[in-house]
């Protein structure tokens, strides 16, 4: 059995790998074309990571502008129109180009085939195509921003987006339509890969939980995304033909747009959060040195969340004028999502309990993730309660809630996963103290930014305005200050991880002593075809021996 970096260091064992350089997926070809035309899931994962980081920086700049405007109660920095365009740009970029593909397209692409013992995903060409669709979708969207932007918010509600907005809406809609197919193809590819490309002996209940999470995510991508595609198409046709499919003046129904929009966009939240939940399961068991508690419950809860996600969408519409009976129904169903979510949190705690916890930096991110996800999840219950939702709807409470889930969840989960798998992806270690500092900044900065927004929302500060009553300034200043700390926590890893990828000390094959195929059967970084032969699996995924075996392991 393996041990961790810190334990090895304590024993004076060098954790760096001093063997001469081997042929890896990174160095076997070096031309630009060999990257842009690659069919290798690992390279495609890295390309996704780079393009998403670029979009994340852009979206982050827009977030910074929003927070700067909100330092003062008066709308003195931006016009209300420009402010609308800024938060729309922030929302569209972050939701569609960062959060949704965040973990599946980057880490999922890179790690999942390794976990399965496969040489690649089932359809490598489709995989590359989905990256290009992502880039084309991004180009369209950024073009619309350059042409003067869109002021509808990321939700594109009609008739604002159909009757009262400029034509840039069409450009963004086209971009998102194209992007949607990128997401669909990734989901399709993953489902087929998980069904058909597993190594001999790798039965469903021997799959690492990250794979289960990606499987559940892929189902949503496959079944949810086409609905937003057709909805945006109908919106476009409405604008082009002048038919009022969502326009009440012409017999149409704007509520129908909201139904169709949220039929995708609620499940989309789970496209963002399920993969980081899977990452958290990997981190918690690895760094607790203990088999995960309730493996089948966690796997099942991922599927349950995917299924529930399709039948709760109207909780976004309690104040939109839907039938009160429908509202009660959707409220009840929304509450039930708390069950599989709670299962996850409790199984992680159960795993840590009496584990031999190793506090390496990925685990720090996992702690942050669990805390933020729990707060985000629990505040969701306030919003799924019909009575309180009427008070809280469209306030900063909602903003805080979904940032806790989508950023505290998806982004912190992504960061944890990146710190965990970075040695695998690039074969080099990063600076551990800096990583811990970043984890701390992210957690502290995040809470400082968004916790005051719960209070502001409860006091009634509406979202999407560039001004607010003077008595709300203190909390807003806290929030902006938090955003600076949070920004620092994001920028740091971009620097030290990039540095580490090129110049960090070389990592061994399995620096964390993990037990899944991605660590035990491949080199760091992997060879172009991942494995020397076909790995065979004979055990459950997390066969960590309990504490007493550790001395024995070190003695090897």
């Amino acid at each position, binding site marked *: 059995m393996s041990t961790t970096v810190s334990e090895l260091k304590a024993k004076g064992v060098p954790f760096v790998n001093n063997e001469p350089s081997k042929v890896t997926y990174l160095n076997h070809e070096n031309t630009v074309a060999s990257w842009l035309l690659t069919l290798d899931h690992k390279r495609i994962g890295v390309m996704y990571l780079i393009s998403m980081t670029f979009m994340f920086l852009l979206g982050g700049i827009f977030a910074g502008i929003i927070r700067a405007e909100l330092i003062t109660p008066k709308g003195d920095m931006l016009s209300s129109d420009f402010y609308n365009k800024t938060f729309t740009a922030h929302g569209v970029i972050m939701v569609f180009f960062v959060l949704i593909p965040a973990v599946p397209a980057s880490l999922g692409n890179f790690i999942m085939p390794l976990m399965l013992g496969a040489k690649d995903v089932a359809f490598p060409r489709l995989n590359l195509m989905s990256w290009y669709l992502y880039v084309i979708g991004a180009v369209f969207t950024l073009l619309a921003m350059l042409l003067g932007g869109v002021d509808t918010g990321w939700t594109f509600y009609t008739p604002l987006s159909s009757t009262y907005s400029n034509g840039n809406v069409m450009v963004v809609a086209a971009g998102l339509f194209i992007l949607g197919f990128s997401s669909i193809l990734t989901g*399709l590819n993953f489902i087929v890969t998980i069904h058909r490309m597993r190594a001999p002996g790798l039965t469903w209940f021997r799959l690492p939980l990250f794979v289960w999470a990606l499987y559940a995510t892929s189902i949503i991508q*496959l*079944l949810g995304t*086409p609905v937003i*595609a057709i909805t945006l198409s109908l919106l476009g046709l409405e604008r082009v033909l002048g*038919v009022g499919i969502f326009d009440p003046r012409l017999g149409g*129904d704007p509520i129908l747009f909201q139904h169709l929009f949220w039929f995708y966009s609620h499940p989309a939240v789970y496209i963002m959060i399920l993969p980081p939940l899977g990452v958290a399961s990997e981190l918690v068991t690895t760094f607790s040195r203990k088999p995960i508690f309730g493996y089948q419950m966690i796997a099942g809860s991922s599927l349950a969340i995917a299924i529930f996600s399709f039948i709760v969408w109207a909780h976004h519409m309690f104040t939109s004028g839907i039938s009160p009976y429908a509202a009660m129904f959707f409220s009840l169903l929304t509450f039930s999502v708390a069950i599989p979510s709670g299962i996850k949190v409790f199984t992680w705690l159960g795993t840590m309990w009496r584990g031999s916890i190793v506090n390496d930096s990925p685990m720090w991110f996992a702690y942050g993730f669990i805390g933020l996800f729990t707060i985000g999840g629990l505040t969701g219950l306030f919003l799924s309660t019909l009575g309180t939702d009427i008070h809280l709807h469209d306030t900063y409470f909602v903003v805080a809630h979904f940032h806790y889930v989508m950023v505290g969840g998806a982004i912190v989960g992504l960061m944890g996963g990146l710190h965990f798998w970075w040695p695998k992806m690039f074969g080099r270690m990063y600076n551990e103290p800096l990583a811990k500092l970043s984890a701390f900044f992210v957690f502290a900065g995040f809470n400082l930014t968004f916790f005051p927004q719960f209070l502001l929302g409860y006091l009634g500060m509406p979202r999407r305005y560039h001004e607010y009553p003077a008595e709300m300034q203190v909390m807003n200043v806290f929030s902006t200050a938090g955003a600076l700390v949070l920004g620092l926590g994001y920028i740091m890893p971009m620097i030290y991880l990039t540095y580490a990828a090129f110049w960090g000390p070389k990592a061994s094959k399995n620096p964390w002593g993990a037990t899944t195929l991605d660590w035990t*059967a491949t080199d760091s970084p992997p060879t172009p075809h991942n494995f020397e032969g076909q790995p065979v*699996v004979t055990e459950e995924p997390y066969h960590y021996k309990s504490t007493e075996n550790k001395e024995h392991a070190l003695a090897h």
Partner: protein
Amino acid sequence: MHTDTKVTGHSGQVQAGGHDVGHGHASDLAHHFENHYQQHEAGNLGMWMFLSTEVLFFGGMFGAYTVYRYKFEKVFEQASNILDPLLGGINTIILLFSSVTMALAVRSAQQGKGKAIVGWMAATIIFGLAFLGVKAFEWKHDFAIHVFPTKDFCWSYAREMHKTHQHPEYKPNAPAKFYEEDAKNPESKQGKLFFFLYFTMTGLHGLHMIIGFGIMAVIMVYAWNGYYTKNYFVPVESVGLYWHFVDLVWIFLYPLLYLLGAHLASH
């Protein structure tokens, strides 16, 4: 331990001689698959997954249709009556025949008969073109009676033409008095919604057929050159599934759009 090469269990024993990279592979087996069975099953499942996406893609429109059909029941029946169920019926039969020929193309692929694939697919395309021909004929009439949902859409004119069994030539606008009538009648907007859905749904369906023609054309070239073997014919099978799906969409569209309400009663 991590520097140890001896690993067990989930840690992945390496199966000796199972597979040597790049060598001993048949040319019709992609490098990342272990065998033809795995490759075939992956391609097949991939197509089924794609079709499930398609179901939801059309599903959004069927959802919108259901909402407005429920809200504007009477007008939707009147609008449906304007369409010709006989032409729609003929088209249904044509498409069913095209599915038969497509099934035979897949059968030929399973038997490894490349040239037969080409023949059956050509037949499929001919049936498909016949369908689109009938559709074009219908659409021409639809344009002439101004039910295409743009600015010159005219509900009362279309109703009038239908009642009196007229087949006018297309003119840019219907006579002015019909537009005045439309302006007074809120039902004209509801009729316009029906025809919006009709043209979008049948248009999207037609687009899928045309995409199918393109894929079939490529496959026919490969098939003619003997590219497909008994071991490798996933593309043929996949386009077959796709075609049956497109056919099936029509099986739903036909009753929803053409057979709504009692054609006999509301004339």
